[in-house]
């Protein structure tokens, strides 16, 4: 922290621990074990107490005389591995000895004070690499050239005669060397005539080889500090109960009932919630909160339920719609020997449910606020904190922590708003924690959607027309992003208006915006996570009804698209497509593009005569165009499969009397080890102009691949999620 007006117990600790790397294996088949070889480190507490270190080359890089290198990582680490991958990208240019590199979070406060020197700080939309690559390459290249210039000046030689590698600058003609640690002070003062060009992909020597994630060493011993782990002297604990019907208001609450309870509980009334702050433990706050019987003004929303929402969405399929894409004429006559298809697909609201429930710890003072939180966007959260607290952004010290799961949820800052509101009343540092039930029910949900497909296939069995209309909530509107002139929420139709199937001559994609009182937000692979289930299932319907192999059917539809076909073919090959299976077992395939990457999956499932479903295996092929850290990309693919599978098998938030029903993991079920399939991941890097993301693209194909596998095994078509709501008994 800057300054010394607060003294958090969180001490600055450095953990230097040997970690792992994998040898080679850039392309297909990287699931091999990494071998312990290299060292790198990060602090268990990811932010530094003092961001103005003594030996800075610049705001990003500190090199100490002992050659240790500190790289500041500007975005968030929530398990996606970017705290390792982004510094790897920087080090591709810097050419420091990776074993001596430590990493910490860049300060959002400094970013505000120094004209956004770190650029954007968000980790969302799978774009941490995509959105950082050019910037951090420039930063690394500039530092390297300044280190070289400093060496050249010391030797009185031309910089062009010098080269750098592994934290050492060498004068090539004489063989003289200087270590980065010896050059850093001089390099910090060097002004280059012009900034160096960054490497092109053919010049990369460091990235592309697996490096163990630098955060993992602190996640096996309790050392990693998450937002909820902040401990501030004198802090009280706060629990919160929001209006059970989202959007409703607090009418009244009798505070007297908590009098005399342990921890001197204080009731704090908020516009849409009531909170209790107590001394000693969060449990005391929660116990006191449980005794309150608040009255709420829930409005008309209190009379709504899920069945009604789905009826209304279905009815809206026949109302006015906005056109997202139109090509050819979908209404032309069905060709001779052709077939027509129509199906409606439905997907429910979902909660993000990160394992660490939302929380924030704040210390509000007259001219300064400190916030400890795990956020996906430290810069934007800083701006919001300033607004909540009535301070300037420069007075906000936001200590971003390891993030206990985000998936799109952790950039709203509603939990921080609560904590600040409580702090204003109790005038003490406050650690506010949402219960799991609050976290689930007051999520900003994945929107529900009802999507109707009408398809025509010709005499050859291939599609000639596809008409899609989706009724869905608008994340774009919720986020305050202006809609494009066509009035279509581009997230709501993501994946429907294309998915590579450009070979269909006549296509309509329409959108009907429809929201309920439940707020919606970005949820891992927004739009795609439900649209690809529906689209890839409907494609399967047309294929199987025409007696065509679903894989070959897609191949024909993707004719001429080499990158798509490479991914699809690899998935079919690695997933043993076409190999014989026992009765009751089937394979399904699905493909999508998402976050600039391509992903195809083959799922193998078994359905017992009693209707019990087991997903045996999922094969993932992902083309991210470029690969920084194969290990963490594979991990993201594995995790995405499980994340997608929880949604596919169990995921639904229902509404009754306006209240989200599911509140905890007993009713909002998650895949556990017993349901976890074997997952094999194969990576492709096809190059090209775009760097693809890795956190999201393996989510969308999963539910379609599984549903298509169920059809292959049983002949039953899954047209709504979750799958647990379907009776599969007697089908095998």
């Amino acid at each position, binding site marked *: 922290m800057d300054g010394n007006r607060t003294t958090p117990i969180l001490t600055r600790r450095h953990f230097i*621990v040997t*970690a*792992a790397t994998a040898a080679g294996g850039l392309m297909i088949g990287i699931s091999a*074990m*990494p071998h*312990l070889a290299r060292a790198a480190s990060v602090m268990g507490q990811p932010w530094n107490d003092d961001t103005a270190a003594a030996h800075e080359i610049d705001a990003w890089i500190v090199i100490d005389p002992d050659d240790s290198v500190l790289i500041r990582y500007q975005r968030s680490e*929530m*398990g*996606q*591995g970017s705290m390792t991958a982004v510094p790897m990208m920087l080090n591709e240019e810097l050419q420091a000895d990776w074993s001596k590199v430590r990493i910490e979070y860049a300060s959002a406060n400094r970013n505000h004070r120094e004209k956004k020197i770190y650029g954007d700080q968000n980790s969302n939309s799978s774009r941490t690499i995509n959105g950082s690559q050019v910037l951090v390459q420039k930063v690394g290249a500039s530092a390297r050239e300044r280190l070289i210039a400093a060496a050249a000046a010391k030797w009185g030689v031309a910089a062009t005669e010098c080269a750098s590698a592994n934290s050492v600058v060498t004068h090539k003609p004489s063989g003289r060397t200087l270590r980065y640690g010896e050059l850093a002070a001089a390099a910090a003062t060097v002004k280059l005539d012009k900034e160096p060009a960054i490497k092109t992909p053919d010049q990369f020597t460091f990235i592309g080889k697996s490096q*163990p994630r630098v*955060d*993992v*060493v*602190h*996640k*096996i*011993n*309790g050392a*990693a500090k*998450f937002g*909820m*782990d902040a*401990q501030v002297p004198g802090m009280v*604990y706060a629990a919160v109960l929001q209006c059970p019907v989202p959007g409703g208001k607090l009418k009244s609450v009798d505070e007297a009932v908590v009098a005399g309870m*342990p921890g001197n509980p204080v009731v704090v009334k908020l516009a849409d919630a009531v909170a209790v702050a107590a001394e*000693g*433990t*969060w*449990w005391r706050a929660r116990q006191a909160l449980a005794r309150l019987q608040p009255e709420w003004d829930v409005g008309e929303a209190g009379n709504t339920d899920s069945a009604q929402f789905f009826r209304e969405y279905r009815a809206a399929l026949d109302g006015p719609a906005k056109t997202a894409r139109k090509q050819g004429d979908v209404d032309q006559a069905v060709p001779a020997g052709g077939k027509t298809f129509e199906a409606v697909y439905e997907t429910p609201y979902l909660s993000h449910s*990160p*394992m*660490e*429930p939302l929380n924030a710890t704040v210390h509000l003072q007259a001219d300064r606020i400190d916030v400890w939180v795990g956020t996906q966007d430290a810069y934007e959260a800083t701006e919001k904190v300033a607004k909540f607290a009535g301070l300037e952004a420069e007075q906000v010290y936001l200590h971003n922590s*390891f993030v*206990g*799961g*985000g*998936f799109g949820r952790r950039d709203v800052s509603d939990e921080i708003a609560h904590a600040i509101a409580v702090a204003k009343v109790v005038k003490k540092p406050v650690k506010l924690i949402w*219960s*799991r039930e609050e976290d689930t029910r007051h999520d900003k949900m994945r929107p529900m959607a009802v999507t109707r497909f009408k398809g025509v296939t010709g005499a050859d069995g291939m599609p000639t027309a596809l008409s899609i209309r989706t009724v869905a909530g608008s994340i774009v509107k919720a986020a305050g992003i202006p809609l494009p002139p066509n009035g279509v929420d581009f997230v709501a139709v993501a994946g429907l208006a294309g998915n590579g199937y450009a070979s269909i001559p006549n296509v309509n994609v329409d959108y009907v915006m429809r929201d309920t009182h439940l707020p919606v937000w970005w949820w891992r692979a927004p739009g795609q996570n439900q649209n690809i289930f529906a689209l890839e299932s409907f494609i399967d319907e047309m294929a199987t009804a025409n007696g065509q192999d679903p894989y070959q059917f897609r191949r024909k539809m993707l004719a001429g698209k080499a990158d798509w076909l490479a991914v699809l073919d690899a998935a079919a090959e690695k997933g043993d497509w076409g190999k014989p299976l026992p009765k009751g077992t089937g394979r399904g395939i699905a493909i999508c593009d998402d976050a600039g990457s391509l992903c195809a999956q083959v799922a193998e499932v078994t359905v017992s005569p009693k209707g019990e479903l087991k997903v045996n295996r999922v094969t993932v092929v992902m083309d991210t165009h470029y690969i920084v850290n194969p*290990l963490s990309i594979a*991990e993201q693919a*594995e*995790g*995405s*499969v*499980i*994340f997608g*599978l929880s949604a596919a098998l169990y995921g639904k938030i229902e509404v009754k009397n306006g209240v989200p029903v599911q509140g*905890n*993991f*007993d009713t909002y079920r*998650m*895949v*556990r*080890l*017993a349901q*976890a399939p074997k*997952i094999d991941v194969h990576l492709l890097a096809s190059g090209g102009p775009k760097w693809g993301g890795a956190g999201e693209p393996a989510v969308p194909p999963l539910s379609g691949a599984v549903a298509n596998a169920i059809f292959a095994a049983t002949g039953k078509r899954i047209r709504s999620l979750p799958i647990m709501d379907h009776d599969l008994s007697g089908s095998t």
Partner: protein
Amino acid sequence: MITLTVNGTQHQVDLEPDTPLLWAIRDAVGLTGTKFGCGIAQCGACTVHVNGQAMRSCSVPIGGLDGANVTTIEGLSPDSKHPVQAAWLAEDVPQCGWCQSGQIMAAVAFLKQNPAPTDADIDAGITNICRCGTYERLRRAIHRAADLMKA
């Protein structure tokens, strides 16, 4: 006043007897490696060892624990080199990491009962939730830990 020995150190905990062990550990003892995930013993993020047994500490009131020996993730080994921790590191298991203290504590207790588990044993014996979906590596890490413990 309830006496708890946590990772070998005795603590006098002045909290109500209905306080779940989790909050005594986090808020009174001040060890934050044990995590809150659900509060109803569903997810296992809060798993610790009480007198050698794995327990979901969010649902164990301290009133019945006077004199108990509690081991948290911080006390599992002095150097983070317990075979289960070593296996977790080698397999690069954690992603966000929030559930992993509990996963590790559950795995340590499980391996005591099942020193050479099959996949099916693991699936039945480890029921903690990982929202990031690290199960593939977690399963491998348990096998690896079993091998390390044999060696």
